């Protein structure tokens, strides 16, 4: 709702990222600008109007009028941007979010461990009742033909296992509960 949006995004606030594309790395900065945005990529500034035209789909119009209909997909920090005819993978690191995540970890966040992406549970590495240290492997999730180890977010005891090996899971599905 309009009031909440205004209170959350301070007018003119810039958000900074580090972007990696191929072998290149750029400092990126985003600021609201009228109905759209101004984005700095390294030394270049791009002005873009950005319109939500559907789930995952945005229409982007650059200053010179060039238009793109782009489809967005995110796997962790990797953004897959399809421009129709060309697909670009951009890794975005948000320095603030990274710091916040570190702080959460220090405070000892615990509880549910969810799947970040859809995939298949290849192996379960722990059993109910196991005492685990932060960072210990809980299970292996295969997604996009890659095996990813899902780790304990904090020290604790495995209270519940919601999945079995071989099971396919949707993004966001609860995998393990740690207390």
């Amino acid at each position, binding site marked *: 709702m309009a009031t909440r949006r205004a209170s959350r995004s301070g007018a003119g606030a810039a958000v900074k990222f580090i*972007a990696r594309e191929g072998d290149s790395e750029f400092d990126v900065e985003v600021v609201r600008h009228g109905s759209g945005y101004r984005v700095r990529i390294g030394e270049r500034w791009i002005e*873009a109007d950005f319109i939500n035209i*559907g789930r995952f789909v945005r229409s982007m119009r650059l200053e010179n009028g*060039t238009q*793109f209909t782009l489809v*967005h997909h995110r796997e962790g920090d990797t953004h897959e941007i399809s*421009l129709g005819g060309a*697909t670009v993978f951009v890794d975005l690191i948000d320095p603030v979010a990274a710091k916040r995540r570190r702080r959460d970890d220090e405070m000892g966040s615990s509880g549910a461990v969810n799947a970040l992406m859809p995939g298949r549970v290849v192996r379960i590495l722990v059993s109910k009742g196991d005492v685990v240290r932060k960072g210990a492997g809980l299970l292996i999730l295969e997604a996009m033909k890659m095996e990813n180890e899902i780790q304990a977010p904090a020290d604790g005891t495995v209270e519940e296992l919601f999945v079995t090996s071989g099971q396919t899971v949707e993004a966001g599905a609860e995998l393990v509960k740690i207390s």
Partner: protein
Amino acid sequence: MPAGMKVLIANRGEIAVRIIRACRELGYPTVAVYSEPDRASLHVVYSDQALPIGPAPSRESYLRIDRILDAAKKSGADAIHPGYGFLAENADFARACRDAGLLFIGPSPESIDAMGSKTDARSRMKAAGVPVVPGLIEPVKSFAEIEAFAKETGLPIMIKAAAGGGGKGLRLVEREEDLFPAFERVTSEAQSFFGDSAVYAEKFIASPRHVEVQIIGDQHGNIVHVGERECTLQRRHQKVIEECPSPVVDDELRERLGAMAVKAAAAVNYYSTGTIECLMGPDREFYFLEMNTRLQVEHPVTEMVWGVDLVKEQLRIARGEKLSFTQQSLRRLGHAIECRIYAEDPARKFAPSPGLIRYINLPQGPGVRNDQGVYAGYTVPVFYDPMLSKLIVHGENRDEAIARMCRALAEYRVEGIMTTIPFFTFIMNNPEYRAGKFDTGFIDRILPTIDFAHRPANESHVDAAIAAAAIMAFEESQNVKLPVDEDSQWRRVARVEAVRGRL
């Protein structure tokens, strides 16, 4: 026959959707059947009623006659449309429907049987005066027969499985020393693919075209032809692009083809839709290959050009009605092309590309038709044919149809999985294709010359993508509510008002 009837569609995907559309226009309620992974398929969502018929493998679901008849009984269906593939050309299924008191929307089981075996069909056609490719009519009993035939007609010859189809179980032999190994291989393939090791041989027509004739007949003895289709462009012996009319068929040849097709259909007392497939040499001499006793995948190009609805016509014919047109009343208009859009990655040797469709934009506008079986948010399963959709365009002439197809392919976007759209764009721009000069080997010849590698994006694309990614991440970090998700206060107030009024 009562005024209405409930139609069960014993199929899936785009063809099931196509049949439901025809039923809707005639006011008939529809029943879909589905296997476990198909519970969210478009044909299921689109039907009035849907019943599960078993697990993923076709032999445990879409090929299970007992389960389909059971679903018909449970839903109170009066008729069954088999679509194409699966049980469409299974005479036992047609018979089982008849025995269960259900209308089978297709030809009689006797006609299916008569055309079911390629060798039986060929001898029947030869007897009826239909030209067939010179060859052994009967399946051979020994290799010696094939050897003698090769000596008599000369190489090259084709060795084929008698029960074969779909491009499986056949081999071209060009050299004498390859004759025996090919015979052995086809025999064993015939056994493992079709459960029948019988093979036969025929003369190989060099640089042929594949032209087929659409026929349709009613149960009162009327049979007409609805022109030809050009189906020469094939990959792995599967059609990928079809056209109506054929660029090499003129009025005189069309009349001869049509007369031949009607004669062939009449020889097996055919009714409903059927297709006579022919091989045509560069001299435009044509030979009967086989008859498909069903609705054909590529039927839409005929519908666009001849202004008929073959599926609705099938439904009427099954009810015993007469054909709604005659040979004389049929008129041809313009040119139509169909591309079969597959979930395959041309850059990876057309490897299947199943998965979630994150976004799909089907082309629209003048002269464009989509017969699709998918939607955004649908996961293409790994168990079935990878065809997503058929894109059909209609234009005033072939040139306009090609330009329209190029435009439609450019509008077409599918994200999340790879498709054969880039492949079709390439073909549509090929000068030989544009000139109508091709044979069945055309695609295999030009494929190695096409570079489907995903080209690296240019700098402005990369900049745009980085900016877009950053804006998306910015919006996420600011928890920006997008308009699509936003629940309007006005709407909420209106809803409260509406409820209050009712209380």
